[in-house]
C-alpha cells in the first residue's frame, strides 16, 4: 500500500526530519545536562568508590555564594562592569571600521583581511599568553613621554584615566573582528538607491547615516550586542569562568560549582532580556515599515 499523506502533513514530516538531528543533540548535550546541573546545585556531591554520592542540602550553595564566598561576588561584579564598558566600545569601533571598509578603494580586500586577523591570532589561549606578557597594550599611550607632553594641557588625574582608557582600546579593537564583519555584511544589504534619494532631497552624509544607515542596520546592532555580550562572558580572561573551573577540578566541589554556574547564567539571561527590551521598540517599528 502506498503511504498516503496530504501536502501539509508531508511538509511537517520533512521539516521535522531536517531538524531531528538537532533536537536529539539538544536533549543529550543541553537539556539533560541543564536539568542535571539544577539538580546538582541543590546537592552536596562527594566522590567515593561507588561514584558520586549525592546528599540534598537545599539552597545552601546559593546562600553560600552570596554570603560566605568572599571571591565570587567581586568577580561577578567586575565581569559585569567590564562588560558594560566593553560592549558599547566594541560596537562603536566595529561600526567605524565597517564604514571605513565598506567604501570602494584599492586594496580593500587586503585591509579586510588584516582587520579580521585578531580573530585568528588574538583569541583564546594565544590572547592569554600575550596578556601574561603585557603585550595587549600598545606601547604608545603609557610609554614614551605622552603623559608629560599632554600634562601641560590636561589636568593630571583626568589625563591618567584618559590614557588608561586609550590603552584598553587595543583590546576593544582586537575584539571587534567578528562584529565588524557582521556590520559589513549588513551595510552591503542597504540599497544604494536609498542614499541617492536622500542626496536628491539634500541630505548631508551625516544625516543620511542617521536616517538611513543606522535604522537599516539596527538588527545587526542587536545581533552584535548579543554576540559581544556572550563572548565577553566566556572570554579567556574572564575571572568567573576560571573560578568555576577551579571549584570543579581543584576542589571537586561539583554541587557548589553547579550553583555558581546557575547564578551566572541567570544574571546573563537578565542582562540579555534587558537588551531585548531596549531593542524591541526599534525593531518592531522596523517591521511596520
Amino acid at each position: 500500500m502506498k503511504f498516503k499523506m496530504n501536502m501539509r502533513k508531508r511538509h511537517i514530516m520533512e521539516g521535522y526530519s531536517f531538524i531531528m538531528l538537532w533536537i536529539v543533540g539538544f536533549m543529550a548535550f543541553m537539556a539533560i545536562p541543564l536539568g542535571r546541573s539544577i539538580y546538582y546545585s541543590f546537592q552536596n556531591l562527594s566522590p567515593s568508590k561507588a561514584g558520586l554520592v549525592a546528599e540534598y542540602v537545599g539552597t545552601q550553595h546559593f546562600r553560600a555564594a552570596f554570603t560566605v564566598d568572599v571571591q565570587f561576588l567581586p568577580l561577578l561584579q567586575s565581569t559585569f562592569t567590564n562588560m558594560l564598558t566593553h560592549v558599547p566600545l566594541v560596537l562603536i569601533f566595529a561600526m567605524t571600521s565597517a564604514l571605513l571598509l565598506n567604501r570602494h578603494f584599492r586594496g580593500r580586500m587586503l585591509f579586510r583581511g588584516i582587520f579580521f586577523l585578531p580573530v585568528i591570532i588574538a583569541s583564546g589561549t594565544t590572547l592569554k599568553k600575550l596578556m601574561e606578557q603585557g603585550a595587549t597594550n600598545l606601547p604608545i599611550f603609557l610609554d614614551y613621554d605622552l603623559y608629560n607632553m599632554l600634562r601641560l594641557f590636561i589636568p593630571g588625574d583626568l589625563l591618567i584615566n584618559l590614557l588608561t582608557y586609550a590603552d584598553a582600546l587595543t583590546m576593544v579593537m582586537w575584539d571587534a573582528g567578528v562584529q565588524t564583519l557582521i556590520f559589513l555584511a549588513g551595510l552591503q544589504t542597504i540599497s544604494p538607491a536609498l542614499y541617492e534619494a536622500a542626496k536628491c532631497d539634500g541630505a548631508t552624509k551625516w544625516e543620511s547615516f542617521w536616517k538611513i544607515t543606522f535604522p537599516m542596520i539596527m538588527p545587526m546592532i542587536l545581533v552584535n550586542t548579543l554576540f559581544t555580550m556572550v563572548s565577553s562572558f566566556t572570554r579567556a580572561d574572564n575571572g568567573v569562568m576560571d573560578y568555576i573551573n577551579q571549584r570543579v577540578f581543584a576542589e571537586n566541589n561539583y554541587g557548589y560549582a553547579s550553583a555558581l554556574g546557575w547564578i551566572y547564567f541567570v544574571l546573563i539571561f537578565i542582562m540579555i532580556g534587558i537588551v531585548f527590551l531596549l531593542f524591541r521598540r526599534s525593531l518592531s517599528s522596523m517591521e511596520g515599515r
Partner: protein
Amino acid sequence: MANPQQFINNLKVSDKINPAVKFYTIKKSKSFVGNLFYYFVLLSLSFVFLYPLLYMVSKSLMQTWDVADATVRWVPHQLNFHNYGVAFTEMKYWQGLTNSTIISLGSALLQIVSCSLIGYGFARYRFPLYGLWFVLLIFTFLVPPQTIVVPLYMFFSDLGWINTHLPFIVPAAFGHGLQGALFILIFIQFYRRLPAVLEEAARIDGAGAFRTYWQIMFPLGRPAMITVFLFSIVWHWNDNFQPSLYLRLPPFYNLAQRMNGFYGKASMTADQMSTSVSSGAIGMAPTVMNQMMAGVVLSVIPILILYLFVQRYFVESIERAGIAGE
C-alpha cells in the same frame, strides 16, 4: 569615463577654462588629500591588528642578550631560530598538531554538514512548535558553557570518552559543540535568502526533499560554508576551555593546551605542569619569554596559513552569506 585625464586632454581649449571642468579638477585634488587621510587611518588601524603577530614573531627570534639590550626594540641582532627548536621539542609539537587537527578539522567538517542540514530545515519549513525550537536554538547560543560543565563532564566520563576526541566530534555531528547554534543561525540566514524557485523546479522533476537539499541547496551554501568552516576551525583551535576538561593526560593535549603550559625550558614543561597540582606552591622558575613566544607562534602558524589561503574567499563570502540576522 574610464580615464579622467584622457577626458580632459580631449577637451577643446575653450572647454578647459570652463568652470565646470575647473570644478572637476579641484574636486579631484581635494579627494586626493581625502584619500591620503583615509589610507593613513586604515594603515594605522592595520598596525594595531598586525601588532600581536609582529610582537610574537619579533620576540620569538630574540635571544637573552637581545632582550637585555636596550637598543633592540623590534629587530634582533641576528636571526636565530634556536627558540623555535626548543619550543618544538618541549611542546612535542607533532603530537599536539595531530590532536589539534583531528579536533578542529573533524568538528568543523561535521558542523558544516549538520548545521547546514538543520539550518535548511529551519529556513524552509514551518511546522508545529517551530517557535519553541527556534527559541531553544537561541537559548543554546546564550547558555554559558560553565553552567553545564559539571554534568557534561560526568556524562562524557560515564561514556568513557575522557582523553578521546569524541566529546568534541560527537556534539558537532549533532549541530551542537562549540558555537553550533551560531553556525545554524548563519545557515538559516543564508538559505532564507535563496529563491524558492530552485527547489520548486527540482521537486517538480520528482526529487524528494532530501535529494533536493543535498543536490541543489547544499552545494549552493558554499559562501556560508566557508564562513562556518573558518570560524569553527579557528575557535576549536584556540579553545583551551573544553580541551582542558576532556583531555586530561599530556599525550592527548592539543596545541592550545601545550602552549598554555609551556613557559620555556628553564621552567616546567607541559607534562610536569599537569602532574603538579598547583605550580604556585613549588615556586615557578622564571619564564623564558622568547621560547614561550616561539611556542605561541608555532601553535598559531597552521591556522594562519589556512587563513592566508581562504581569506580571499572568506571575506567575499561574508558579503554574500550575510552572517547577520535581518
